[in-house]
């Protein structure tokens, strides 16, 4: 019924995508999360910005 969340999500991704420190891949991953219809989990967001690398282990 309310379209506001979708409007906010689109604007958020659009504005964030213009930042130099954010990659296209990160934006797409965020888009998938936001469009997934599930409640966002902090760990999912962390994993987008700081993926666990094998070399770190």
């Amino acid at each position, binding site marked *: *019924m*309310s379209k*506001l*969340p979708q*409007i*906010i*999500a689109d*604007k*958020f991704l659009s*504005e*964030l995508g213009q*930042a130099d*420190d*954010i990659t296209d891949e*990160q934006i797409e991953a*965020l888009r998938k999360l*936001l469009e997934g219809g*599930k*409640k*966002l*989990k*902090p*760990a*999912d*967001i*962390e994993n987008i*910005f*700081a993926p666990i*690398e094998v070399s*770190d282990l």
Partner: protein
Amino acid sequence: VIQLESVHIEEMRGIRLLDLNLNRKNFAISGPNGSGKSGVIDAIEFGLTGEIKRLAGSGTKGLSVSEHGPHVDKVKFPGASFVELRVYLPTLAQSVSIKRSIQNPKKLEIIPDTKEIRTVLDAVANHPEVTLSRRDIMRFILVEPSKRSQEIQTLLKLDELGDTRAALKTAQNRLQQSLRNAQSQTLNAKNSLLLHLQISELRSELVLESVNERRTLLGLTLINELVATTKVDIDSAADTSASKFNKVSAQKDIDVLQAEVADIDKLGSDEIKEILQGIARLESDAGLFIMIQQRSLIEKGFELIEGPTCPLCDLPWGDEEHLRAHLTEKLEKSTEAAELTSRISSLASKLSGIIDNTVGRLNMVANIARAKEIDAKVEARALDDWKTDLLLFRKGISTTEGLIAEKVRFEKGWLALPKDLHEKVNTIEKLVGALPDQSAITAAQSFLAITQERLDDFRKSRQAEERAKKAATAGKLAYDTYCNVLESELNTLYEDVQNDFSLYYRQLNEDDEDTFNAKFTPSEGALGLDVNFYERGLFPPAAYHSEGHQDGMGVCLYLALMKRLFGDNFLLALFDDVVMSVDADHRYQFCKLLKANFPHTQFVLTTHDRVWAEQMKSAGLVTSKTSLAFHSWSVDTGPMVESNKEIWEEIAASLAKGKVEVAAASLRRHLEYFATHQCDQLGAHPQFRADGNYELGDLLPAALSRISNLLGKAADAAQSWSDTVAKDKATNLRKDIGTAANAALVEQWAVNKSLHYNEWANLGKKDFEPVVAAFRQLLNLFHCATCDSPLHASPKARPESLRCACNAHNFNLNKKV
């Protein structure tokens, strides 16, 4: 989204059996408190959503639809409790029958059942806010700004925005913490390298100077440039295990650890002091302590409310919204606990940095102890044990509960230096010191090997820090951007709501607050509300406005929010005794407000004030056909319905059974209602009673006198305007009412007690039937035959007209001047 055509209720709440024909029109239900009105709203709400709000939310612990939804005599037979609704779906231009039973509230039987219809009805089920009760409306007005923001966002289905923002904030905080950890690691690696190289700052020329001094000694080529891939020990030795012990470097590492251990009591002393103060605060307030203990549990639980079932017992959620609201309320109560938790966590984070540093020193010396040249296994194990203890402690203080549990350790020396550590380190130092000095060649080889090892550590740490920094920057950017976008969009939304709210309130109070305006002040997670008080400035709603006005604000704000939520699809609202919130002076404007601003919305309203119900008719909000009165209720029968049309049938039925006393009671009750209402409609003046307990003998003669007087004025006014048609109409009606009143013997009540209504029960059937007929005739004359609304004076104090809702009757009372 939908409108109601008819309602059939069986064995629900206080209702045994009830049918209502709404025909997609506004509908009013009146009746005294406890007569079953709210049960109708509950049943409709249940039919649409499968839920009953009155059985959920704060103050309803122990109540449930399954146990308390059925009529009290049918609790064990939930299948007997059900609601059938005939609803109209404008988007599909189709009428549909739906049935929902208490036995299976989630199951909706639909006829016809198509995917499109089910989609619409699923959307309807997701909107319990179409039902508004008196207790609901204050949720928007008399609440803390943070609560108001939450309530409004919940109503507007914007909860997920708050969830998303919270997730982004948590992710941002965690990424910042990861960055701090990475920075700490880099600093430790850097210090370790500087210590080994015996230089004060990490500049490539200083590193290369130290490295090339050894390489020269070993006859190796010099390194001119230090880049990320430079190997400083290249070509230095074949036996790498032997080359990693350097006596001089080992002695310096040991010296640093000894110096740190000597001053260990000073490490983190400021942080410890503040942490202990925080713990003391918690110990002095048991409630706060419990809240902190529960907070993390509740936060975790909140995250787990996702999907149709409980992740612990795998059973479907009983009432997901109720649980969510309950946990939200608990979390809000723990704001102070949250602030204290946040501060303590920040201090614990600093202590973790100190531990990382100490662990780094311990690692260096433990490696020395394990070197084959030293082989001090016992001492190495002692250092490892302390390191393990420190790391466990570090992990423990990462939670508030763990931190509180370590109170004694904070008081007695939080780093818990083992008693014999000095001795163990001294042993290692002696063993190192006892070794013969390494040959210059061996020392140079081991020096380069250790340099390379620590340089690698530093490079890895720095790369990890760089990644952590990028991640933290991205996390902060994401959170800030989301907050900015959210704030901007919500500000626009709030401005729209604020304007509509102000407009509706002005319309409701046009007589004395026609310049009213309101101001929303949104901030992070909160929404302040101030309202203008007679142009003296903006104040909180409860500051100067009366409770009645505050109630009016609640309704207006609700309407503004619903307009924003549904737009043109705001087609149904169920108001359970909400209209009582509107004070008597503004009820007409309230009806006008609904009609003017929401002409396509079907309002189903209940009120315990029958006069108010009649005012809704007068204002044209409802008609006699779309209103219903409950006169009483019993647990066996449910609501007893009374209506203008049915009352005569009810009386006739009683008389047919020879029950004159029942018929007499029904007639008297109806006349009381009629006379009260008619006095109000006409502005009649019964003899004043301070206690307000007017009897039928006070009211009915006053109403008759008033209408006779007004019709006389109408005839005179028509005469002055030479309007013979109007004059005749007024005169004839006045005459008819007088004749009917005489037939009903009303005027003789005062002089002949045997004819008084109090004596009706003692009359025989044949004697009472003419009385009933006379009153029926009399009462009909007070109503318009076209629209069935009662005649009313307008305005009441100094009437200028006497008319009905459709204006088929419209007597001018002003004479030509």
